[in-house]
């Protein structure tokens, strides 16, 4: 007789706990057969998708919206769910060891200055300001405003942005665009062939008109254009796609019929005429009397820039709103998918297993129906832990009882400390339950350990089984369990999920969630 069985007897005897329902008991290999959509190798159905890089999903909410750029067009190609979850919609870029978690850590803890990298998420053009913001801790919006002011005031600084774009590598990459641009002979030749005569001509014309300072302003602008062309030619594919999809439209030059282009030309001509008028006024300002003229000239220059750039600004704004809406929609969808997975799909799997026990089926179906109704019509999320609990320990206890009752596995709970539940911690508990259920389904063991520790600024939660384990890298990417229910859930609130497992060595899901309400 095993100790385990004895323990159960004893429990009943003491009336502490319900006996696990026999209909749901044998979940080891039987479980596999009845779950056709998930042909996974071993425990933690979940686990796999999240390997060492799991933490990258943790995008700090404080960064503000990622660049305008992240339209929906490319998301179609990206796989739903795996890898890039709540941040960067689908840039298939290589990532270095400096993942977001580290950055976030710095953000919270030390605001340490780190090597400058262009930000792939927080970008309008090249992500330079986003990178500066990340390195210094200053809000990106202020960095951008500062950049524009300095550029306008000095003129020469206009060139600084394209140069930074060219020279500073993207986050997670070691090469900059310059490394590739330098070998782009054709691009350099073309740019030089156009720029050099243009610059010479401009210099000649402006100096003959005795306004050579206008020429000096022209230099950085023209050079910037040249550098930008080189960037565009030599950016890596994902960045180039970004430029094509999200920067080019800002120029209003992406419409296929000639209309858009003609309109752009008209705008530029009108703007240039106004600017010429303004410059003429400025130039004459120092020879003739009117002290008001320079002001009028400045106004004209501003008007010119509004005429030329106004539509860009508008579309920038529109895109920003559209992008926000798209993101909210995606998030809602993910939340819904996670709920349905946890409740309806879970129940369906249980019903399949209990198909020879009509009473059990009826019970499961009834419970599920009630939950679903509560969710659809009363807005209570189904199967969510913590509705009845206000403290973490209560929530963990609820988790333990639910999983033990539904899945016939013993859940051994160890708690250190306790704290009130908030939305983020409820999400953490939901994720933990999912991990526990996964262990029940796949580990082949009859016991799983849950350890929760409340620290000053984080809550750590470990779900460990000593079952058959699996290779986290070998599990297919489309496994809903780990991606949506565990990782995305905690990532939504700034938490992380890491899975440690190897065949034959059990599995451990390590969850952590920053606490909103710190201990004083």
């Amino acid at each position, binding site marked *: *007789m*095993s*100790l*385990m069985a*004895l*323990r159960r*007897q*004893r*429990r009943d005897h*003491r009336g502490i706990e319900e006996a696990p329902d026999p209909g749901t008991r044998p979940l080891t290999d039987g479980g596999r057969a009845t779950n056709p959509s998930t042909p996974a190798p071993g425990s933690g159905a979940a686990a796999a998708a999240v390997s060492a890089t799991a933490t990258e999903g943790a995008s700090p909410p404080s960064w503000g919206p990622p660049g305008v750029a992240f339209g929906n067009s490319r998301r179609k190609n990206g796989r739903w769910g795996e890898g890039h979850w709540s941040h960067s919609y689908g840039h298939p870029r290589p990532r270095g060891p400096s993942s977001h978690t580290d950055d976030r850590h710095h953000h919270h803890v030390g605001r340490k200055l780190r090597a400058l990298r262009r930000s792939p998420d927080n970008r309008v053009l090249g992500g330079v300001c986003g990178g500066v913001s990340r390195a210094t801790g200053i809000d990106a919006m202020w960095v951008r405003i500062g950049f524009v002011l300095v550029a306008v005031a000095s003129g020469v600084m206009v060139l600084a942005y394209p140069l930074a774009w060219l020279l500073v590598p993207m986050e997670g990459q070691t090469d900059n665009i310059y490394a590739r641009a330098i070998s782009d002979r054709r691009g350099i030749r073309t740019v030089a062939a156009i720029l050099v005569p243009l610059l010479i001509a401009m210099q000649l014309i402006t100096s003959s008109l005795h306004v050579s300072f206008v020429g000096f302003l022209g230099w950085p602008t023209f050079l910037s254009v040249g550098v930008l062309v080189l960037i565009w030619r030599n950016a890596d594919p994902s960045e180039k796609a970004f430029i094509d999809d999200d920067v080019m439209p800002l120029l209003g030059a992406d419409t296929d019929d000639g209309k858009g282009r003609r309109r752009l030309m008209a705008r530029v001509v009108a703007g240039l005429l106004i600017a010429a008028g303004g410059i003429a006024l400025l130039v004459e300002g120092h020879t003739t009397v009117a002290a008001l003229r320079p002001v009028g000239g400045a106004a004209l220059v501003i008007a010119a820039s509004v005429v030329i750039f106004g539509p860009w600004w508008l579309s920038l704004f529109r895109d920003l709103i559209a992008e926000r809406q798209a993101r909210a929609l995606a998030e809602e969808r993910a939340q819904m998918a996670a709920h349905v997975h946890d409740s309806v799909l879970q129940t369906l799997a249980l019903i399949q297993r209990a198909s020879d026990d009509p009473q059990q089926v009826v019970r499961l179906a009834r419970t599920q129906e009630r939950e679903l109704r509560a969710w659809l019509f009363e807005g209570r999320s189904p199967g969510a832990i913590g509705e009845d609990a206000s403290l973490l320990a209560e929530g963990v206890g609820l988790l333990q009882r639910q999983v033990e009752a539904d899945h016939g596995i*013993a859940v*051994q*709970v*160890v*708690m*250190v*400390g306790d704290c009130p539940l908030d939305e983020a911690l409820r999400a953490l508990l939901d994720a933990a339950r999912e991990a526990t259920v996964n262990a029940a389904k796949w580990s082949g063991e009859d*016991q799983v*350990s849950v*350890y929760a*520790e409340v620290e000053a600024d984080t809550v750590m939660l*470990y779900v*460990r089984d*000593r079952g058959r384990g699996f290779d986290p890298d070998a599990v297919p990417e489309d496994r809903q369990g780990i991606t949506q229910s565990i990782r995305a859930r905690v990532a939504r609130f700034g938490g992380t999920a890491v899975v440690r497992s190897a065949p034959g060595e059990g599995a*451990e899901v390590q969850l952590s969630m920053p606490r909103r309400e710190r*201990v004083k």
Partner: protein
Amino acid sequence: MTGPTDGLPVTAPAPSGRPRIFLVEDHAVFRAGVRAELGNAVDVVGEADEAAAAIELISERLPDVVLLDVHLPGGGGHAVLGGVLPHHPEVQFLALSVSDAPEDVIDVIRAGARGYITKTISGPELLQAVYRVAAGDAVFSPRLAGFVLDAFAQVGAPAPGLDPELDQLSPREREVLRLIARGYTYKEVGRDLSISAKTVESHVSSVLRKLQLSTRHELTRWATDRRLV
């Protein structure tokens, strides 16, 4: 657990061949279960199902390890510890209980048990625990490790009047306990921290000593909070 050599720990050999075990447990079914699990690897020298009989028989037979149920008719495990240890400090006690309740944990440990395991433990792990205790080491279940972390939690600076030797856990001890609380075996703890299982044992023993000797305010408060002492 079938054969006598199966799963024997290399790190904690019994003092003299098979350890002599005494079972104190009021459930006959459970006693039979433990006997079956331990098999021939130990020598069960006696059994008792209540405190008074247990004290008498243990003092007479002086086993290496007493497997002690915390809940007993006639005084509980606490009474057995109090009745035996003052006269026979060489007898080691390993508390074994179905209860996960914290008051049981602190009670028997403070009374002098060398370890606390719950009955969910597997046969080989139980045997391992028996050998550890027989060798004078401590045995912590995840539950007990969690309790110690909780009771020794460092909130702010240590209170004045505390002996830092006794009333604080070293960072290493904390790490070891945390892994045990997560369900790791000593061997797995050692592998994870790149130390030997023997070192893990010495950390755990040192924690046990602190647990028994500490006058730490939190320890008392912790127990009081849960209506103990």
